[in-house]
């Protein structure tokens, strides 16, 4: 025995207890005359009833009574923890900033030293080049002198 397709939706809404008074009146009138729908209606209501959880026990009710206070305490604990983490984070950030500030001049000095080394190196290279050039001139002079000597000889 199956339910009438036209009433299937209403039967489900009856099981979910969401029928309007008008819908309910129309459906109950139909259920009085249709065995298939009546059987389906009963089965659906039974299914929802079987799925329901039992009412809260007295112990659970008492336990819930204390929840506003315990939840508030938990909220404050969480707030304190967040503030602490924030402070620790800010402390770490401040320490990092101090470290950077204290290290920066040293780094800057090191940088300057490196630059001056490079600057010192430049004249040395120039001097070396000059020295080399001097040598070349001296060599050519020597050659010419020797050559001259040879010529003279």
């Amino acid at each position, binding site marked *: 025995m199956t339910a009438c397709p036209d009433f299937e*939706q209403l039967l*489900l*809404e009856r*099981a*979910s207890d*969401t029928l309007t008074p008008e819908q309910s009146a129309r459906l109950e009138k139909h259920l009085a005359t249709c065995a298939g729908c009546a059987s389906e209606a009963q*089965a*659906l209501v*039974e*299914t*929802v*009833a*079987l*799925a*329901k*959880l*039992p*009412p*809260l*026990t007295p*112990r*659970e009710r008492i*336990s*819930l009574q204390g*929840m*506003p*206070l*315990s*939840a*508030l305490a*938990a*909220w404050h604990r*969480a707030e304190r923890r967040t503030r602490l983490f924030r402070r620790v984070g800010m402390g770490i950030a401040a320490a990092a900033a101090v470290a950077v500030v204290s290290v920066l001049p040293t780094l800057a000095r090191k940088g300057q030293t490196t630059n001056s080394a490079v600057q010192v190196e430049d004249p040395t290279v120039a001097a070396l080049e000059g020295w080399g050039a001097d040598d070349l001139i001296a060599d050519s002079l020597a050659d010419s002198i020797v050559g001259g000597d040879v010529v003279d000889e």
Partner: protein
Amino acid sequence: MPFDAKAERSVDPRLRRALRLVEMVPELKLDDDELCRAFLAGDESAFGDLIRRHQARVYTVVRRYAPDPEDARDLTQRAFLRAFQAARRALSRFGPKHSIPFQAWLFRIAVNLGKNHARQERRWKRAPISDVELNAPSQTSALDALVWAEASKLVRKAVLNLPRRQREVFTLRVDAELSFGEVGSALGMSENSAKVHFHYAVKRLRLVLAEQREKEKNS
């Protein structure tokens, strides 16, 4: 303070009438949004009011997933705290005029916490459904009560095995007794979608029950 008739008579009659009028006005019932804002502004009594308003229904929803009363209580408390944190974040991010659908957030959080808890329970191979007290109707024989208890156990297990959306809708409708409009707003769907999911869920549960009864008949 003891009643002093003389002092009472000395009060301006107009003020007395005004005070009487104030006493006649019923206590103003603030909605969730107002209570939540009041708490975040520092009114701790609003926190308690909001919790008392919803705690039994939230507890019932999470109890579906966490049959141990201690676990269910812990999850309920966490759901409230997270909902308040979400409200505070929303207000700081979007400004004080942003609306706070506190109930919708609360139940969505509760369902998610419950689902995660059930997943962890399953991972640890604990059978959550067996611990719940059975809900046999009164005035039944012992045999009927036993049959009812077995069927109830089966259907409750089937509820946890429903597809996600169907399970969430079914739980919020049956356990929290939210209207389909409220269920839809908690789960981010339309009222009609919530109805459709509920109907599919009931049909599926009905099928599970019918199959079981058929098996029992055959055996």
